């Protein structure tokens, strides 16, 4: 890549500025950076999707295996470069796993007799051979991501690109995923928000900030640089908060259970307290949170709630109903625009009131979701995985924001991220038992 400078059609600002780098065969590279720093765009330039799919103003030169991406379309580069994106739901095309993995092979014109064997080999290499006859709609997020990885590896690419592949997967799944990346013949470039595992696996580190390549060094030097300039991106040891419960209980769950997903659990959250609910996928965290917020009725036991509850869903895409940001937030305040604007200001979206919610970047959308629930001034605030795909610096700011506002309400935060839990919470409540292995 030489002197790459790029801007998308809609935005006047440059997304990437003067990026120059080269990647050797078999190298393991991790790309770090905050949201909006251009990591995803950088990966897409390596596939040709930028500029051919997205359009825009493109200067400089990118060559993959000697082929110029300006002259070759992404489909032509597909056998040499393969990608795994963030959300498996936005990559899976077929209803059956075998057909899904075969899709890329079919497009590349692989002889039909060879396809089935290659599919099985690829699935075996990611430990998913038992899934070959299954339907994609039945699989969990972690399993789907493995299938996507198998689909990419089946093409025998020389360069494998991963765009935050574990952000939708829990820590156990993420560790397992990185183990699969240990032994690949191709060069691998992985953009990640969770530095810990990625830095262990990588040989070389790239750091992007505002579209500029600030760092391009082997891992050891990179760690020193990060320590000096961007300490938030270093792997951190989680603190274990263990204050005793305090404050008058706003929400009390007594021996609640729900349809086998949650069994006989009791939990109380007091005013002014922040409790982190942790546990692996399939342990029933979301169900318990919805029971607390009053969105579900428990099968047994009782839920006592003093005041109003608000529930922030995992997927910020669910807070994009109206056509203007301030109208969206005002849904929670019964149309009161003044309160809506105040809530937007408190999450740092002050100047964006009149924008269309779908024009917001992913980081801005998450803050919009938070504003939508904060505006209701709830007595119990339940946040379901607010740190998915969020960069370390913004996680710190979110923790500060939550701690600053904690008086006057009880907060329940569901998270996989133990570092974040340590920063934000007063105590931990953990659900250990995996009741639904299908989700794990």
């Amino acid at each position, binding site marked *: 890549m030489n002197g790459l400078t790029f801007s998308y059609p809609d935005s006047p600002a440059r997304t990437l500025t003067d990026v120059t780098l080269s990647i050797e065969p078999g190298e393991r590279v991790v790309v770090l950076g905050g949201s909006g720093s251009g990591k995803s765009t950088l990966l897409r330039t390596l596939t040709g999707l930028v500029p051919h799919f997205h359009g825009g103003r493109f200067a400089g030169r990118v060559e993959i295996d000697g082929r110029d991406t300006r002259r070759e379309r992404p489909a032509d580069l597909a056998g040499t470069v393969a990608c795994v994106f963030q959300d498996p739901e*936005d990559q899976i095309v077929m209803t059956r796993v075998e057909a899904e993995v075969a899709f890329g092979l079919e497009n590349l014109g692989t002889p039909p007799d060879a*396809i089935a064997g290659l599919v099985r080999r690829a699935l075996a290499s990611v430990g998913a051979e038992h899934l070959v006859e299954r339907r994609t*709609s039945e699989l969990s997020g972690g399993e789907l991501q493995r299938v996507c990885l198998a689909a990419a590896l089946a093409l025998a690419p020389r360069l494998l690109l991963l765009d935050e592949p574990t952000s939708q997967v829990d820590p156990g799944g993420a560790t397992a995923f990185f183990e699969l990346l240990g032994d690949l013949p191709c060069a691998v470039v992985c953009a990640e928000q969770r530095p810990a595992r990625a830095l262990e696996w990588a040989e070389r580190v790239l750091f992007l900030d505002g579209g500029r390549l600030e760092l391009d060094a082997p891992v050891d030097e990179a760690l020193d640089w990060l320590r000096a300039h961007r300490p938030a991106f270093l792997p951190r040891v989680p603190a274990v908060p263990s204050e005793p419960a305090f404050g008058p209980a706003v929400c009390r769950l007594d021996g609640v259970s729900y349809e086998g997903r949650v069994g006989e659990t009791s939990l109380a959250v007091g005013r002014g307290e922040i409790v982190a609910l942790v546990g692996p996928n399939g342990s029933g965290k979301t169900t318990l949170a919805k029971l607390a917020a009053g969105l579900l009725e428990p099968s047994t036991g009782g839920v006592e709630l003093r005041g109003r509850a608000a*529930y922030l869903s995992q997927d910020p*895409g669910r807070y994009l109903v109206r056509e203007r940001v301030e109208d969206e937030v005002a849904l929670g305040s019964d149309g009161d625009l003044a309160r809506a604007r105040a809530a937007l200001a408190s999450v740092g979206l002050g100047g964006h009131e009149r924008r269309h919610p779908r024009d917001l970047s992913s980081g801005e959308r998450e803050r919009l979701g938070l504003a939508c629930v904060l505006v209701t001034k709830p007595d119990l605030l339940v946040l379901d995985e607010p740190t998915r795909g969020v960069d370390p610096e913004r996680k710190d700011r979110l923790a500060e924001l939550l701690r600053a506002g904690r008086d006057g309400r009880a907060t329940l935060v569901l998270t996989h991220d133990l570092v974040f839990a340590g920063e934000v919470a007063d105590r931990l409540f953990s659900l250990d038992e995996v009741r639904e292995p299908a989700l794990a």
Partner: protein
Amino acid sequence: MSPAPAAALLAALGAAALLADRSAPPAAIALVLLVVCLRAKTPRRWVYLAGALLMSGSVLVLSPFLQSAGSHVLWSGPIVPVLGSLDVTREELAMAALQASRLAALSLAFTAYALLLDHDRLVQAAGFARRSTLAVALATRLLPTLERDAVGMLEALRGRGVALSGVRGRATLVSPLLAGSLERGLNLAEAMEARGYGRPGATRLPKARHNAWDAAALVAAVVVLVVGVLWL
């Protein structure tokens, strides 16, 4: 049995039933298909079967009153505006029975298809029309995801204390649902291009080899069709 020969057999049975001139053959076909449908395990079969029964039942009951033909009057009724005189003749009953049994056979053939055949494999087996099959496969695969998006939006609204009800309430979700699905669509298009879609010279995963049952089903389909055209 692979779905394509089975679908061909069902189609042949349906066509033969529709070509019949006497009620007995389609009724027999309908009975056979009914037995086949009852072998399905899902509880939905009752809904489908009830629907098929209702449709053919209404044809059977209403048709004789809606026409005047034949001479062996079985029952004579009053003269009513629009419908004319309500009388039932043997010929009318025979025709009604024919149409009803045809409809029953056809509906049950479709029901058997819906209950027992694996739609995905059938779509994939159509090797020639790649784009259409891909479009259908993609839309089918997305439907549960998009439904979850819709439910999730409802839930997120409840989570901020907004309750939607009725037609107008649900109507406000249609646009965001579409907007979200378009974003998904563009992301999917990106992934498809990155996996080489659009290159000339694409091949297909070969279909499973035909076994004895498949051959038998195909032969049976042809036989049924020929019998239907020539004899019935």
